[in-house]
C-alpha cells in the first residue's frame, strides 16, 4: 500500500517534475521580482501571473522534454 503510493508519487514527479518546478521555483522567483519592481506596480493579482508564468514555462519544458 505504502510502496504503491510512493511509486505513484515518484512516477508523478518523473512525469510532471518540470511543470511543478516551473510553477513553484520559477513562480516564486518571478513573484519576488514582480513585487520588487516598480514596473509591475499597480497590476492586480501579480502573484497569480507570476506563478502562471512559471507554470507555463514548466509546462512548455515538459512538452519539449528539455528546459533549453
Amino acid at each position, binding site marked *: 500500500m505504502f510502496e504503491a503510493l510512493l511509486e505513484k508519487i515518484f512516477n508523478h514527479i518523473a512525469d510532471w517534475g518540470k511543470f511543478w*518546478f516551473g510553477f513553484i521555483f520559477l513562480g516564486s522567483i518571478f513573484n519576488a521580482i514582480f513585487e520588487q519592481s516598480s514596473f509591475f506596480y499597480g497590476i492586480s493579482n501579480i502573484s497569480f501571473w507570476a506563478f502562471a508564468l512559471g507554470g507555463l514555462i514548466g509546462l512548455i519544458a515538459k512538452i519539449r522534454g*528539455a528546459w533549453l
Partner: protein
Amino acid sequence: MNELTEISPELSFDKEKAMAKSFSKRFQWEMILIGVGQATIWLSLWPLVLNSYLSLWVGFFIASLCACFAYLPSHEAQHGNYSRGNPKRRWLDAFVGHFTLITLMYPYQILRVTHMKHHAYTNDPVKDPDYLNAHSKSLLKVIKNASDGSSTAYEKYLDVFENDKAFINTFKKAIPVAMLYRSLLLVLVVIFPLETFLLWWLPAKIGTVYTTVFFSYFPHRGASIGRYKDTSFWSHWMPRYINHSMQLHVIHHLHPNIGHYDEPKAIEALKPFLIAREVPGADQIPDRVTYNPLIKF
C-alpha cells in the same frame, strides 16, 4: 605499441605503475580544506545575507566561486584518495564527498558510481555517462546541456548497467538524497525566493557548467577509446589555477590515485612513458610544468 604492450624495459608498464604509485601516497589535505572550506563558506552566506551583513550580489559572487570549487574535492573522494585504502579513514571519503557537493546540489553516490563508469568506458557512446559532455559539437552546446541538466541526466544509465547490481543499488540508494535536495530547494524558494535563486540555484548552475566544460569537455574533446588515447593534454590561455589544472587530466585517467596536487610532479616524472605510449599532446608537455599550484608552507 599503445595500451599495455612493452616498449622497452626502462619504459615498461610496471615501471610506469611503480612511478605513479610513488605520487599516490600523500594525504590530500589541501583538497579536504578546499571542499570543507568552500561548503562552510557557502553555508555561512545564508545567515550573513539573510541578516543583511552581506549584500545578496556579493553573496552570489562568493557562492558562484564556492560552486566552482565544489566538485574536485568530491572527485578525490570518489577515487578513495583520502582514505587511500585504509578502512578506518573511509568515513573521510564519504564525509568530504557528500559535504562539498551541497553547493552543487548533487548526491555524492550518484556522481561516484557514474564517474567510475566514466573511467571504465571513457568515450564509449553508450556506456560513458560523460560522453555527451565530451563529444558535443561545440562549447556552446556543452554549456547548454550542462545548464538544462541534460548532461547530468544519469537515470538512463540505470538501463545501460541494469545487470550491474552494485551500480544499481548504489544509484537507487542515492535517489532520496537527490529528492531531499530538490525538496529543500523548493521549500527554500517559497520562503527566500531571491536568496535561494542567487545563493544556491544559479551558483550551482555556474559551478556545473564550469565543471563540465573544464573537467569533461576540454580533456576528452576529440579523443578516442583506449587507455592512452581517451584523454588529451590541452592548452588554454588561462593559468592552471583557474581551470583546476585540467590540462593534466590525462594523468588522472591513467593513474586515478595520484592526488590532484601531485599531478604536475607526476607528469614531469612520467613524461617519457607518456611520449612512448603516444598519449595525445604528450610531446608538448614542458619539462617543468609551470603555474604549479602546489601549496607549500
